[in-house]
């Protein structure tokens, strides 16, 4: 029986980007976190086959890679929405009513916290302090900060606008 080659988790172009992280810092292993971050952005999660690939690229163990994936909140093992919405519930945002915004996100996006919409477009989660207490309550839509969240701001995010 001919062994079936396992599906490669990344395209040649993506492999090139991941490999570049092994040469960015004085030691290859220092690029591991940035490479995983890239994987999360492309795939909206980090799957076991990604962990295997990254582990061999950085000449480390799958265990060590998995440890990072489960330790750091930015990595997920199931896909987030293409738009990952973070609601800050740190003290200053809580004082400014972030709990009301949580209800509002659930209503407008139609999913509870941590669940991705059926079309894969959105997921939302409460996040620890986003460092935007001057714009409380703060929302993070992927990498973009949306300060001073109100029902209108949440509605706009849910419609896909900024």
């Amino acid at each position: 029986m001919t062994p079936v080659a396992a599906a490669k988790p990344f395209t040649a172009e993506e492999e090139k980007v991941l490999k570049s992280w092994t040469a960015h810092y004085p030691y290859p292993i220092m690029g591991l976190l940035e490479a995983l971050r890239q994987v999360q952005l492309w795939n909206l999660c980090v799957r076991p086959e990604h962990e295997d690939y990254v582990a061999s690229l950085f000449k480390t163990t799958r265990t060590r890679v998995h440890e990072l994936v489960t330790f750091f909140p930015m990595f997920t093992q199931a896909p987030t929405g293409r738009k990952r919405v973070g609601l800050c519930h740190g003290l200053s945002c809580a004082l400014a009513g972030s709990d009301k915004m949580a209800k509002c996100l659930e209503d407008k996006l139609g999913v509870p916290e941590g669940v991705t919409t059926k079309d894969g477009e959105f997921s939302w989660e409460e996040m620890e302090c986003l460092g935007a207490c001057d714009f409380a309550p703060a929302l993070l839509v992927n990498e973009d900060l949306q300060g001073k969240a109100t029902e209108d701001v949440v509605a706009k995010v849910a419609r896909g606008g900024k």
Partner: protein
Amino acid sequence: MSTKILTQHFNEPKLHELATYRKLGGYKGLEKALKMKPAEIAAEVAKSNLRGLGGAGFPVGGKWSTMPPADKAPERYVVANYDESEPGCFKDRVLGERAPHQIIEGLLIAAHAVSAEWAFIFIRGEYGIPFKILEKAIAEADEAGLTGKVRVRLMRGAGAYICGLDTALLETMEGKKAWPRQPPPFPTVVGLMGQPTVVNNVETLAMLPHIIVNGGDWFAKLGVLPNPEKKLPGSGGTAVYSVSGDVEKPGVYEFAMGAPLRAIIDAAGGVRGGRKVKAVIPGGASTPPLSASELDTPMDFDSLRSVGSFLGAGGVIVLDETRDMSEVAHNIERFLAHESCGQCTPCREGSEWTTRILGRMLEGKGTSGDLPNLQRIGENITGKVICALGDTVGMVTRGFMKKFPDDFKSKVPA
């Protein structure tokens, strides 16, 4: 009266661009530093009485002086700690967005002062905007030949507050989970990849160009001078405060060390809606609160310690008379429970227990044992764990209970 060093040109809209920064005197500090011997720079910084503005307040000159000599340990690193994640703190975000070159210039001066050829900026993963601004600024500085033989690299975190602690940050940079190391040895001796490494907060680094241009004495005199009689080291220069919570104009405000807390709150427009202050968290969520009667406390490392709190990273959170301090304590403990790295049992378990007990009290299900338990749990964490996060877990609730006992007593049976 507000004294400005780092924020003096913040009304300049293009300050983030190299040309504007240089026109306003930028990179003159680096130019001067490159003509000085590393030991001369370190001596000037020691004289300035600059203390670490990321929270610990460790004297910067003292930290650098613990590095082994460059001929004995040629592979050495400088790391800018840009992992600002403490609730109530956002001054580093603003400093990087508005004046990225001020941070880069400081980093390059530090690299020269400790003879390092690699300099890193470790920035939290959620700071997408400052990351892009810094990336562009580093490219500009490289192109203009300002980085010289120093290679400057950015690295992003992935959402863990604990990375703001130097040894946890170094573990993360080495591609490991962010478990703090137990010093000694300190990072200046065994740091990144086992080599001597200086880790300084970005605001601290941004002060360096100004110290080199104007002199250590100038900087020291702006702040609180040492008091040898009381054995107080003093605090040089200024601090940039993040002011948020119940104030009219949340934002960053820079003041000389030793300015009264009241002046900082006034600068932020005072308490929102004309209400009264109930409590103020002076240095970020992990620092114990001050009450309304303590608003004249001078804001510097030694003065805040004398009233049982910390200057921390200058995250001033104002809480007005309508706020319930048990809710505030619950919010902070929940944060700490989420961010506990799990390495030390007292912190990992104690933060969860404290959060659950406070949560239960807020649901009206408090029991007569809750307050003594909160006290006892706190006492069994602080001082019994590796890092400052754990110490904080045991301090926050006890700090609020001590100053605002009624807000807690009202949640348990009499």
